[in-house]
């Protein structure tokens, strides 16, 4: 057939038949991807906040975090429609600020800090997936062997084995082809959603009157004390925890940074923009990012309501003290009282235990996959920009995937997995990931705010250029607002010890008590050093790495 021209379905446009780019990921898949990345299972808010922030309101703290993330998500919507390419933050920042800033910020805040997330996902899989599954099955089926297996999954050896296996399986799956992952993502999505729905149903349908009785029965079946609730309550009160603190506005505000640990990932699909169909569509990107954020924020907030409804606020402080103040009596056999274990205890049904356990296993596995997917793309982009060795961007001819990047990221995660489970205090860096990734998001928001001025032609060619308020581009308004709010969140982690080790500044016996801050600072310095070294090395070969990002003036 010869080249024919035809009239498009769209009015008043002429198109001719020509080949073109086709993208793989549907907007719906990207929406699902973001929700799973935010992790409906992330439990920190429900134990950390009551333990560290007495008087804080979980529901409103989560809603506040959702509201704070909205302008950030909108800044990403604008950036994604202007630059619908894979690589997300690295691409956005390098386009506006150049390679030095982009490489240093993304390498330190994302690539290195997210290694901790790989370790965390293994911990989640073992501790919140396998352990409750076997503990629950052991309790509901009166099988001590299963209960013992459940306990093994809460111990360092069990978690390390599961974490390494988790990382290896994810690596192999993704190396075998992105399509295989996307296929499994549907299973992970429905499994997670079913588990969350069942948990919701149990928390909202169970009478509060039976809560103590069922929790005690579950504790006994799991090898705990007979009068668990009363024992735990007495121990927590003895430890000096106030079980009925008055409402605190400041504590409620500080719940938001903890909830942000989940909600800050609403924009993670930007890493895959190059694979999303109609990624230039404003509506699509808004649904993908802002829509997934609001959906997840509301679900997490209502989970807090459900927990408080069935267990009461007094119990929330007991469970929080078990986790945050390390009151052993407020744990079941050393197992913290996460929302899923509460639902398992209340249901007392092997089927429900299985559904919730499998759902948590699925979502934990999804998280490690997301770490690999996002970070290997960033590594490949950096390698193609000549800032990392060439072999990292090598794409395997058989599987069409960057095998070396996956192997490199897996090998880098092994020492972090070991440290996470064996080095005392290392787990305190968990919310450091929120800090590290938080400053990446902040810099990207600023890049969004400056996009109309630093990359004028790019911005003007984007669909978002049509939106202004009082003559000021909306992306500038959203980016500035998101940057300010994000900075407040990041500073909260640096300044408040209730939010983790980064906020605990103790200069006594320097530098012993400042190891976390030193690590956070060193990560940035090392990243900057890699950039400077790569730039110098490439220049000797006739390559100026700045050319990878610098826009050519058309005139």
């Amino acid at each position, binding site marked *: 057939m010869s080249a024919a021209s035809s009239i498009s379905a769209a009015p008043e446009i*002429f198109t001719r038949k*020509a080949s073109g780019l086709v993208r793989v990921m549907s907007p719906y898949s990207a929406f699902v991807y973001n929700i799973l990345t935010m992790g409906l299972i992330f439990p920190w808010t429900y134990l950390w906040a009551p333990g560290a922030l007495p008087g804080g309101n979980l529901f409103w703290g989560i809603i506040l975090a959702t509201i704070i993330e909205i302008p950030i998500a909108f800044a990403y919507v604008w950036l994604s429609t202007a630059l619908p390419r894979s690589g997300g933050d690295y691409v956005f920042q390098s386009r506006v600020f150049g390679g030095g800033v982009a490489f240093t910020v993304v390498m330190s805040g994302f690539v290195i800090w997210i290694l901790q997330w790989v370790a965390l996902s293994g911990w989640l899989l073992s501790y919140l997936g396998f352990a409750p599954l076997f503990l629950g099955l052991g309790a509901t089926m009166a099988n001590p062997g299963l209960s013992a297996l459940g306990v093994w999954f809460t111990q360092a050896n069990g978690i390390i084995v599961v974490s390494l296996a988790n990382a290896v399986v994810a690596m192999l799956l993704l190396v075998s082809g992105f399509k295989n992952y996307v296929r499994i993502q549907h299973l992970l999505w429905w499994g997670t959603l079913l588990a969350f729905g069942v948990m919701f149903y149990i928390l909202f349908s169970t009478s509060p009157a039976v809560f103590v009785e069922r929790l005690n029965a579950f504790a006994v079946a799991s090898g705990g004390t007979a009068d668990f609730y009363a024992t735990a309550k007495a121990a927590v009160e003895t430890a000096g925890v106030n079980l009925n603190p008055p409402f605190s506005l400041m504590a409620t505000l500080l719940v938001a940074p903890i909830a942000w640990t989940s909600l800050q990932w609403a924009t993670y699909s930007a890493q895959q923009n190059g694979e999303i169909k109609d990624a230039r569509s404003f509506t699509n990107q808004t649904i993908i990012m802002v829509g997934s954020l609001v959906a997840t924020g509301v679900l997490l907030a209502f989970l807090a309501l459900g927990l408080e409804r069935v267990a009461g606020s007094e119990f929330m402080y007991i469970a929080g003290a078990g986790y945050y103040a390390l009151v052993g009596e407020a744990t079941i056999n050393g197992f913290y009282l996460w929302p899923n274990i509460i639902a398992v205890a209340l249901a007392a049904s092997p089927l429900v235990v299985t559904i919730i356990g499998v759902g948590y296993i699925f979502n934990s596995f999804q998280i490690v996959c997301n770490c690999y997917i996002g970070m290997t793309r960033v590594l490949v982009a950096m390698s193609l920009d000549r800032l990392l060795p060439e072999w990292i961007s090598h794409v395997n001819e058989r599987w069409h995937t960057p095998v070396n990047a996956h192997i490199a990221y897996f090998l880098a995660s092994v020492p972090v997995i070991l440290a996470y489970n064996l080095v005392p205090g290392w787990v305190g860096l968990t919310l450091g990931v929120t800090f590290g990734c938080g400053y990446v998001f902040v810099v990207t928001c600023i890049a969004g705010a400056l996009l109309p001025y630093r990359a004028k032609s790019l911005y*003007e060619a984007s669909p978002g250029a049509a939106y202004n308020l009082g003559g000021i581009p909306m992306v500038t308004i959203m980016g500035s607002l998101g940057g300010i709010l994000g900075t407040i969140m990041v500073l909260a982690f640096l300044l408040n010890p209730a939010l983790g080790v980064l906020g605990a500044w103790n200069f006594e016996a320097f530098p012993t008590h400042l190891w976390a801050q030193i690590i956070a600072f060193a990560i940035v310095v090392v990243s900057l050093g890699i950039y400077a070294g790569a730039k110098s090395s490439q220049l000797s070969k006739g390559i100026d790495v700045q050319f990878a990002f610098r826009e050519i003036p058309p005139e």
Partner: protein
Amino acid sequence: MFSFLKKALPQSTTRIFFATDLHGSERTFKKFVTAAKFYHVQILIMGGDVLGKLAVPIIRETSGNFRATLHGRVQRLTTAAELAEFQDQVGVLGFYSSIMDEDEFLAVRADPAAVERMFQQLALERLQSWIELAETRLAGTGTMCYITGGNDDYPEVLEALNRPDAQCVFAAEDKVLQVDAQHSLISQGFSTPTPWHTPREVPDAVLGTMLDKLIEQVDDPTHCIFNFHEPPVNSTLDTCPQLDWSTDPPAQITRAGQVVLFGAGSKSVRSAIEKAQPLLSLHGHIHESPGAVRIGRTLCINPGSEYGEGVLRGCILNLSAGRVDSYQLTSG
């Protein structure tokens, strides 16, 4: 910056910039020409698909104002400045624009042959303006620019590249060109059949014959640059979704709910590279599959394309004595 590069590179090094699949984008072509000075290269190579795919009629209304549709939105243009700005915006995206009365628009829309003629005329005008721009900007710089067509380009329009008075901008297709004292260049813009049935497609075996004839004319393939629009099959430079050819437009094939990806490149191109083992093989065609791979000793490059965003994707290459000393994918 450039002084550093000059010091780093030996005198015998030839510095090349390659880009492809601009699809009519005014901004990316201007960037392509400016790239010579910006990246400090001596040779510019364009890998095909230079013509646009979409035309926006700017309709003159009875009131004297204009209306046009872009990104699905109808825009009203009331001043000359707005009109110029809109035409510029359309050009950035790689689209053509044509001012016409309401009656003329309706007549063209009703006649597919008229649409075809309109596209060819607009494409020719733009290509001629590009050639003129490049000749003007590159004059006296010593930079040579070699352009080939791609499968999407009308053969009649590509004829505009063959000019007896060419100084800096040369048609490269189906020729052996000496780009410096040591290296030659051969170009071929045809592709194997696509679901879109574009103007310049041939069966893979025919493409293989065309390539063989061209390669036979090269004295030393190991010092030759291949500039073939279609990438080698299953090279990772050709990965894209598999499409159903029976629908219009072609639809993605899904299996178990997922899009099926495959290598859409040419067996003949791969075979030619494997046999001749040139120092470098430049490709385009599959926008979504940029990268660099080696087939034997040959470095194969597909820089991808983001013409629609006004971004010029390309690759800088430093060559000397039949070797690629270094290369860098760019996003300008």
